[in-house]
């Protein structure tokens, strides 16, 4: 049986929003009445569809479910009354967008560790500093998305 991918995508995303962590396949299977293999297969399809990226060598866990990161990063996001980790500054601001358009991103300059904050309110950038640097051309972002 092929599980409803949209239902699974929205369930996993909802759990991340509620708990600030990405559920493993066994948690998703238990919540949705699937076998663990069905959940693993769905995770693989979401990975292939670039909804997220699996933890290398572990088909039961996402490393990232964009824009959220499963592991701590230098991009802390406060939005909707919770704190999250974004994969990069693009995704950190994406978390604020997904959660309604109000929140803050705290990070540090990768060169000098200077602390910086971006703040968004009602989908308007209210506080900004620094400059965003993309090192990988757009056509190659998914060649190695963890590096990107």
């Amino acid at each position, binding site marked *: 049986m092929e599980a409803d991918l949209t239902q699974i995508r929205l369930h996993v995303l909802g759990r991340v929003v509620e708990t600030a962590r990405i559920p493993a396949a066994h948690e998703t299977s238990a919540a949705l009445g699937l076998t663990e293999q069905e959940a693993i297969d769905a995770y693989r399809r979401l990975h292939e569809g670039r909804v997220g990226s699996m933890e290398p060598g572990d088909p039961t866990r996402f490393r990232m479910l964009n824009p959220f990161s499963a592991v701590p990063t230098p991009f802390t996001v406060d939005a909707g009354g919770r704190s999250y980790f974004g994969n990069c500054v693009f995704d950190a601001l994406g978390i604020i967008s997904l959660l309604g358009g109000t929140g803050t991103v705290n990070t540090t300059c990768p*060169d000098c560790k200077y602390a910086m904050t971006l703040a968004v309110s009602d989908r308007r950038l209210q506080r900004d500093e*620094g*400059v965003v640097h993309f090192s990988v051309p757009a056509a190659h972002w998914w060649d190695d998305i963890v590096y990107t």
Partner: protein
Amino acid sequence: MLLFRSEEHVELSGKPRGAFLNPEQQWRLSDAWYHDRADPAWRRKTVDEAEAVFTDLGLLGPFWKLRP
């Protein structure tokens, strides 16, 4: 995609020079990319749609092209 204190700090970090956005451009790009991610009807942007987002933000040139 990292937030540096300035372009000079990118040079000082030793990272190869890529493309720069100001935070306002990045917010608009992130918002365009993710605002509908929790919508059941969400789907990945096509190449044309993604390139149109870049163009709207003034992100032009080979760095922002998605086709070889």
